[in-house]
């Protein structure tokens, strides 16, 4: 400081971590959610742009098989129950419950990845067949990337929770924000599911063209 200073307030009583908008982590996570959400929105816009160029939709293919995507949606929505619980446990700084919750969340993703494999296998079109196939694969791949990154994130966090760092306030903040990100992964699947599985069903039979 090059100017003389006048002390006004002592801040040593302030906490060293806080949840939600009070934490820096929340702003970081929300920033990346906005980026990725924009990516999803633009990919969906690209889907409809390509659709508007076609007489028939889906062009030269059957709509993707409904079963696997719907199962994914169901499991995804169910997975948000333990997610809400672990987020709450973390915000109340209950170490044991947070550990259990993170282990559950690490396991929950595995059936989702298996289901996702079946989804890819039942899209009824290759990515290189036509633009419809390309955008379908792109949408599913984009969402799968999020599934994978959040899974790795959760695994690392779960492991961290069982070390001596588990008791630190910041780990609870991390867990809480990880829960927020899982909400995003779940919620973003709903419009993607509708676009991938239902739009082709609503348009076949001559709704467009």
């Amino acid at each position, binding site marked *: 400081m090059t100017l003389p*200073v006048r*002390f006004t307030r002592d*801040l040593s009583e302030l906490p060293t971590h806080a949840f939600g908008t*009070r934490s820096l982590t929340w702003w970081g996570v929300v920033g990346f959610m906005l980026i990725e959400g924009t990516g999803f929105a633009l990919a969906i816009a690209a889907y409809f742009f390509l659709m508007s160029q076609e007489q028939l939709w889906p062009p030269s293919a059957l709509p993707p098989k409904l079963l696997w995507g719907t199962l994914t949606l169901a499991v995804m929505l169910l997975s948000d129950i333990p997610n809400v619980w672990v987020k709450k446990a973390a915000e109340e700084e209950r170490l044991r419950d947070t550990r259990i919750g993170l282990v559950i969340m690490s396991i929950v993703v595995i059936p989702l990845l298996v289901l996702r494999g079946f989804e890819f296998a039942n899209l009824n079109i290759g990515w290189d067949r036509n633009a419809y196939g390309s955008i379908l694969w792109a949408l599913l791949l984009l969402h799968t990337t999020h599934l994978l990154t959040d899974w*790795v994130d959760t695994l690392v966090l779960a492991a961290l929770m069982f070390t001596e760092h588990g008791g630190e306030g910041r780990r609870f903040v991390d867990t809480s924000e990880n829960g927020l990100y899982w909400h995003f992964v779940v919620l973003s699947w709903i419009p993607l599911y509708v676009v991938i599985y239902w739009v082709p069903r609503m348009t076949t039979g001559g709704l467009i063209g």
Partner: protein
Amino acid sequence: MSRRGEDPKALPRDGRDLTGDALHERLSLTWHTSPGFWGWLTTVDHKLVGRRYIFTALVFLILGGILALIMRVQLARPESGLISADRYNQIFSMHGTTMMFLFAVPVMEAMAVYIIPLMLGTRNIAFPRLNAFSYWVFLFGGIMIWVAFLFNVGPEAGWFSYVPLAGPEYSPGKRTDFWAQMITFTEVAALATSVELVATIMKQRAPGMSLNRVPLFAWGVLVTSLMVIFAMPAVMLSSSFLIADRLVGTQFYNPTEGGDALLWQHLFWFFGHPEVYIIFIPALGFVSQITETFSRRPIFGYPVMVLALVSIGILAFGLWVHHMFATGLPRLGYSFYTAASMMIALPSGVQIFCWIATMWAGRPRFTVPMLWVIGFIITFVIGGLTGVMVASVPLDLQLHDTYFVVAHFHYVLIGGAVFPLLGAITFWFPKFTGRMMDETLGKLSFAIGFIGFHLTFFPMHFTGLMGMPRRVYTYPSDIGWNMLNMISSIGAFIFASALLLFMINALVSYRKGLLSGSNPWEASSLEWAVPSPPPPYNFAHIPVVEGRTPLWDAGGTLSVVSGLRVEDRELLLTTAIDAEPDVREPSPLPTIWPLLAAIAVTALFIGSIFNPWAIVWGAIPLAATLTVWFWPKGPPEAEPVIE
């Protein structure tokens, strides 16, 4: 170091009992970057990262400028055989790519990385490791595309790489693939920086700096960062589609299989138009800070200025289609995008009137930064007027893809962003280095630069009106373009010599300039309260802000808060709107892992150009480096630990 189990109250903190030299010593120890090469690789200090970010972006400015000069040599005479058509394609593509992706956007973010934490009164940027990572990714992406160019695999389809020209059919080989991955590199870097800057501006402002007291440069950076967040995903998506079309046979842009070339244009310009404002809005911030300082009065119409910045940020997303008037649109589309394009002139005009009013009502000092601001106002108004001209569809159809457009966007980009940048570098140079840039050389480079710029680009309006298209590598001698092109080429060398003079001035002043002291310009914002160059911890005590111009309001004594720990890196978080003190937040230590993660990213991106499976295999080292990066090292922190 105090660790778990000790009484947090006993930890040493800044305050009445710990201030002055004793505090400086302890904070320096906590916040310093180790000397030597290892320290250089691992630093997370926003000032060191910001400085090297600015420096690297300026190196790309020189490289892009050299390409511009080569083009002007080629175009100085008709039917010149100096450069082949193919080489020329690569040169203009690299010129645009370098200037937009490797110079303009990065340099603006880099200035913000350096200045914003100081201006807001905090000790480091939010997510400083991400910041270091962002720099490395940017650097590696820039090196990649330039090495590719030097090996004759540079991009060849222009900086906006339109399909089908850039598609697998008309651009075989790896040239466009390198371009598409360069996009991914630079966008990852820009997006990371934007998230940091938003978090910093929203959460790390000095107590009392409520949103209605935030300096206009910080407002500009906030708007810009949000624009990056909403615009850049579009270009990442479009370039990923492009590289997928080229490498794994997707059909996004292939009209014979249901794809559409216009999908590229929509996605690209949904990014590309906001991009112009992403470059321009930080420059508006520079202009406001400089105008305020050298007019020696608070900026006129602050609330209107903030609203203008925000409305430019929003309107910028409604303009992209005006780049596509020549593609054929519904009539309503024409009218809508014409109206939107003209509308954005309003907030820009409001700002200009506010600056003029500030100067009018103040006591202006015509220093070098102020001269660049005046040069900016003149040049930008001309560029803005030609912008309103080409917003009109019939005129645009006539002038599309001619040198008139080249003239227009160089007026708005160089006049609107580079002039303020040169002013800003002169203005903050003492803060960066502790020394002043030479005033006489500065004035000389302004005068030469201003003349050289207009000599280069003003004639292009006429070359364009006479029908000369962009991106032609030569032209016949008998259609009347010879003289105008020759003038532009001479002007280009004059302009380049001014930039060279500016850089020589910077280099010489860095070693031998007059020592500046903390606030050589008697400016009002917080960065001028700390020594030049600032110590590693920026502020010994976190300042308290009581108005829009804190140092002018302080009256010689700065109010501060105390109680942050000194043996661990600690920042103050304040509430988002009112900037009330809220949380003491730890800030990360230096580490090598962001660099290693950037190397892993580089391997993944470059590998994917040659084999799509690189995305899968490359993800493993990337995940590993990121995990180690985030894994806490050392024993747990002293407070608070929940047992």
